[in-house]
């Protein structure tokens, strides 16, 4: 299934999103832009799941929002089946949104508290009336509810009557209502309990098997990402740190940040419970004022002078493999050794 020869369904090229402090009040002075996403590239192929992980605030959601064109990018392009979504007109965009759907991070906020579940789940068909004839809405709503592990009679309830996990399933059901080709899942299972999480993941996998849907799966629960993803991308502070087949990234992370991340994962394996995690010093730097060179260098135990000077590019690690990493001193390289391409400087 990996790296199909076919065309990627989404191609993200140099995606950049800088937030300008809004005009109006700026007591905090200065015109410092927040570089939420700063030149991200990746492809998404039909039928695959790309996991996207990274620390809170590193720009995962912003990537998702920009792909959905909920935000206008600062630079870069996103090609959906070869067509740049940022130059789409209104009708093209509407079609795109039928095919590219999203599940949001915060289930409490993502559902309108005034609408019943029935209304929430039929909203996609209100917007795209040609998808499903009206008479079938009620039945389909209940089917969707059951599909995501809820009860049909929940259709008449309102969001405040559900727990967070139940709400998230409603959000997933809504995204599935249009049978999209790409589903961007922005931490869809973070708020779910294990069993439901398993259901949802199974569900997502089933749907993928049936429809060849592609997932961009953002999560911070590494075990889930490990389970569901074919490929994994690790972001740090608006940049891609590492991207590659899931097994490679998880088993032998190339980027020190990936390694630290993986070590922090709580595990169920008895032998690993006492495992030491690689502690990261300090907080994640502000995206308004990111470190020069490699963005991770301020917290990296391997950082050297060069890291502050040169921005590491995504390169195959080990050379020739499918996995790309942006690091001057990847994990497999001995600490002291300076990669030869840097030696000239």
């Amino acid at each position: 299934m990996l790296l199909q020869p076919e065309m990627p369904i989404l191609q993200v090229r140099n995606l950049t999103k800088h937030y300008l402090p809004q005009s109006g009040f700026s007591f905090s002075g200065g015109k410092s832009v927040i570089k939420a996403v700063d030149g991200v590239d990746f492809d998404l192929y039909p039928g695959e799941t790309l996991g996207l992980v990274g620390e809170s605030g590193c720009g995962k959601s912003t990537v998702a929002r920009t792909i959905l064109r909920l935000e206008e990018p600062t630079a870069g392009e996103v090609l959906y089946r070869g067509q740049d979504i940022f130059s789409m007109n209104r009708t093209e965009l509407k079609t795109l949104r039928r095919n590219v759907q999203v599940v949001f991070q915060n289930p409490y906020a993502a559902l309108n508290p005034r609408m019943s579940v029935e209304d929430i789940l039929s909203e996609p068909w209100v917007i795209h009336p040609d998808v499903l004839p009206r008479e079938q809405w009620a039945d389909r709503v209940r089917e969707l509810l059951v599909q995501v592990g809820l009860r049909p009679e929940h259709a008449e309830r309102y969001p405040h009557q559900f727990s967070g996990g139940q709400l998230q399933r409603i959000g997933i059901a809504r995204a599935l209502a249009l049978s999209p080709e790409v589903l961007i899942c922005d931490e869809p299972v973070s708020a779910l309990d294990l069993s439901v999480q398993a259901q949802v993941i199974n569900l997502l996998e089933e749907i993928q098997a049936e429809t060849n849907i592609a997932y961009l799966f953002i999560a911070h629960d590494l075990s889930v990402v490990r389970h569901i993803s074919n490929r994994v991308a690790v972001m740090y502070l608006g940049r891609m740190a590492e991207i590659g087949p899931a097994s490679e990234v998880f088993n032998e992370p190339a980027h020190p940040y990936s390694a630290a991340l993986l070590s922090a994962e709580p595990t169920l394996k008895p032998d690993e419970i006492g495992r030491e995690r690689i502690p990261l010093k300090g907080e994640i730097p502000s995206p308004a004022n990111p470190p020069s060179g490699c963005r991770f260098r301020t917290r990296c135990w391997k950082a050297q002078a060069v890291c502050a000077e040169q921005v590491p590019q995504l390169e195959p690690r080990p050379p020739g493999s499918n996995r790309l990493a942006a690091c001057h001193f990847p994990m497999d390289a001995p600490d002291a050794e300076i990669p030869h391409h840097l030696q000239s400087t």
Partner: protein
Amino acid sequence: MAAAELQESVRVRRHLPWWRLLLRDKFATASVVWFVILLAFVFLGPLFLSDKATAVNLAARNAPPGFSHGFLNILGADPLGRPLLPRLMVGARNTLAIAFSSVICALVLGSFLGMIAGYVGGIIGNLIMRLADVISSFPSLLLALIVLYILEPHVMNLVLVLAITRTSIYLRVTRAEVLEIRERAFVDASRALGGGAPHILRRHIAPLVAPTLGTIVTVDFAAVMLAESALSFLGIGIQPPEITWGLMVAQGRNYLTQAWWLAFVPGAAIMLTTLSANLISSWLRIINDPAQRWRLEISRKEAKP
């Protein structure tokens, strides 16, 4: 899940019908009754009572409330001896027509512009807001004079004046709320589904702004009726022989020491109507707010055991 189970649970209604929820709220029920009576006035009053309402009978001049001058004079009579009760009933049509239309026009116009200002923002939003500033600082009396002088003091023109002067509050409140609501994730979710601005404004934003606006609307009823009264008094609003409650209040003002009921009776009608509108609107707010609805549903449970 089993298909049978699915089938069974489809269309099971777990909510009371609205009228039973209404009966739960005694105040709202009373308010609806008052409005039904008003509607009867509006449709039947002018049909049957026009003559009674305008028949001058100087013998019953300023008759106090009571039965001394016959049933029609139960609420008293005005300086021309015209009975207040039929006048109130006949006046209901104009009064409510003016109040409803102006408040609704102001609401529609204000909330529409407010939504645009809030949702679209940018230059257009700014433009709308500054326009609102200009309109708010335009004295309503001058506006009334202009419109009514140029366009005759007709009910519809009066509505125009009152609507314009009331618009800015709806505009501002709506915009403020929209600014907040549009940042919520469910709005993004709807956009991601392909929902355009009209869809989102209608389905997501309007229902959330509605309760706040509802509150203002009901109080505005009173404001509009009294504004109309003030205009009449200055000689540029509705004028006799038309009848409106506001006009009745304005005319009764001269007799406060002698015949307090002249201003009081229509004033009380205005108050009652405002009160009823408010009680109904708060009832509506409760039944439309899923998180509050139980307040009405619960009472039966409590009463049962």
